[in-house]
């Protein structure tokens, strides 16, 4: 009986805590359906640069509201039809993040197979240096990236962000761990049947790594959809910057729009998450430790 009560209390407590985790996301979505007047009445005080700069009623304190007084699609209409800059920045995010994900996963899958079929001392040393590189923050890696971009004359172009992104070794690490867990005998049997390395890689290894591949795609996409540091240093041209940086520069007149833009911005990663949560959880769980 005491056990049951304890478990019930734990459940209640955990549910409340989990609700707290969901709250900011839910608030963003519900607020995106509010009218401009409702938003500026509720939150205007936060965004007003000077006292009295907003028009209409403005509360002195913020009133957090979950449910709009009246559901309005006005903000969505505005960002999708009237203010092209939001869609443009959204598109900027797409053409930065998608090539990085596609490139990084392709290069990494090849490299992971390379680290799996042969494990000499040199390979292990290289794998170890990949791990060290993977653990380095942008504060360290942006300096070499900047030097190369400058040397190749591609500073302030998308390539300056995309190319280093493709060769970031995070995916190599996760995929190598997964491929090394596939029994060697499978490879040897396929080889005896006359399959070449490329065939073994595409027909045996890639299908076996499906959940790791999917979780790498999600994790790399999330990270790059969210990019801030690289943009500030390598892509300072405001026209080419992604929505992740632009959303913070919203001025007081446009907070209503910003909520709708923020909600739209969540859609791609959230869809990926809902579609492949199982793979993602499995992929994270597979990381386990740093040993190969």
């Amino acid at each position, binding site marked *: 009986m005491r056990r049951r009560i304890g478990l019930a209390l734990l459940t209640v407590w*955990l*549910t409340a805590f989990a609700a707290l*985790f969901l709250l*900011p*996301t839910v*608030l963003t979505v519900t607020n995106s359906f509010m009218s401009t007047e409702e938003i500026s009445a509720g*939150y205007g*005080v*936060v965004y007003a640069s000077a006292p009295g700069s907003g028009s209409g009623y403005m509360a002195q*304190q*913020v*009133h*957090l509201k979950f449910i709009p007084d009246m559901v309005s699609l006005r903000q969505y209409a505005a960002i999708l039809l009237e203010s092209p800059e939001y869609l443009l920045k959204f598109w900027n995010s797409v053409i930065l993040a998608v090539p990085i994900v596609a490139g990084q996963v392709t*290069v990494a899958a090849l*490299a992971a*197979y*390379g680290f799996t*079929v*042969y494990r*000499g001392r040199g390979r292990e040393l290289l794998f170890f*240096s*990949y791990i060290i*590189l*993977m*653990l*380095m*923050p*942008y*504060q*360290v*890696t*942006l*300096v*070499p*990236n900047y030097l*190369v971009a400058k040397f190749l004359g591609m500073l302030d172009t998308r390539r300056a962000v995309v*190319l280093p992104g493709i*060769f970031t070794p995070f995916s190599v690490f996760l995929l190598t761990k997964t491929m090394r867990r596939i029994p060697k005998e499978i490879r040897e049997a396929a080889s005896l049947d006359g399959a070449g*390395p490329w065939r073994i890689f595409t027909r045996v290894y890639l299908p076996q790594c499906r959940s790791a591949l999917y979780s790498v795609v*999600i994790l790399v996409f999330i990270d790059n959809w*969210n990019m*801030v*540091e690289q943009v500030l240093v390598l892509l300072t041209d405001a026209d080419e910057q992604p929505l*992740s*940086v632009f*959303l*913070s520069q919203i001025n007081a007149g446009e907070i209503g729009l910003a909520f709708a833009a*923020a909600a739209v*911005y969540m859609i791609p*990663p959230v869809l*990926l*998450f809902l579609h492949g949560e199982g793979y993602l*959880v499995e992929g*994270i*769980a597979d*990381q*386990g*430790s*740093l*040993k190969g």
Partner: protein
Amino acid sequence: MKKPAHDRIGRRARRTSALFLAPSFLGVSLFFFIPFCVVVYYSLVADPISRRFVGLANFQKLLRNAAFLQAGRNTLLFSGIAVPLAVALSLALAVALDRSIPLKSQLRSFFLSPLVVPAASVVLVWQVIFHRSGALNSLIEALGGTGVDWLKSGFSQLVIVALYLWKNLGYDMVLFMAALAAIPKEPLEAAQIDGASPTVIFFRLKLRYLAPTTFFVTIMSLVNSFKAFREIYLLTGDYPFETLYMLQHFMNNTFRALDYQKLSAAAVVMFLAITAVIGLLFWLEGRLGKDLEQ
């Protein structure tokens, strides 16, 4: 007769390995390894044009730079608070969810969800909550307390720690949940039969099996703690309150001034500091993990 055939297979595997590794190796060398060597070189010369070797002078200058020291202290303080909290809380969550609780998988999804929400999307809500006249202060004042300016006071680091935990606890928790599920059952059952209490079993047995994962979670939390700059930047811009001035801010400002010597020396110092911390963690794991692998 057997050995040459074996050699041939080994050689072929080696060639296959080299071919598959080539694209990644070339890219990583071009964008990271080689330019990092240039960074080390730049950190040791007076300027890129005269190339006069000055030894450690750039480092001495950097370590006397007030902005660098401030940023270093703030970053160290932040990671020092955030990382242990993340490890302890995510372990607690994983243990709680390890029991037979209703809605277990839904709860896991809720805790994991902040991971996929872009920082830029929720930053609006954070502003509304933590502003001087924001929702949190409204609540505090309604309860009879006095509000503080959360993002422009000594409390600002706490706010960022909270945002960091919000984003990262789910990921760490999933890592711990997998490790808990992988603990072999026999030793636990044996201990139970011997009459050991759940607390004793947890601290004496389970924690030992969790050692490698704890090590991994610590390292990943540390790596992710450097990304808290995103939230700080999106919330407070280029010039935040002084306790939120992080190493990334320092680097951004130095990039703007194009001071290669300072940038290079700072990158090398951070590289060494992080390598030292990771090395220490590796060493700790080796010592703690030893008694398990008999």
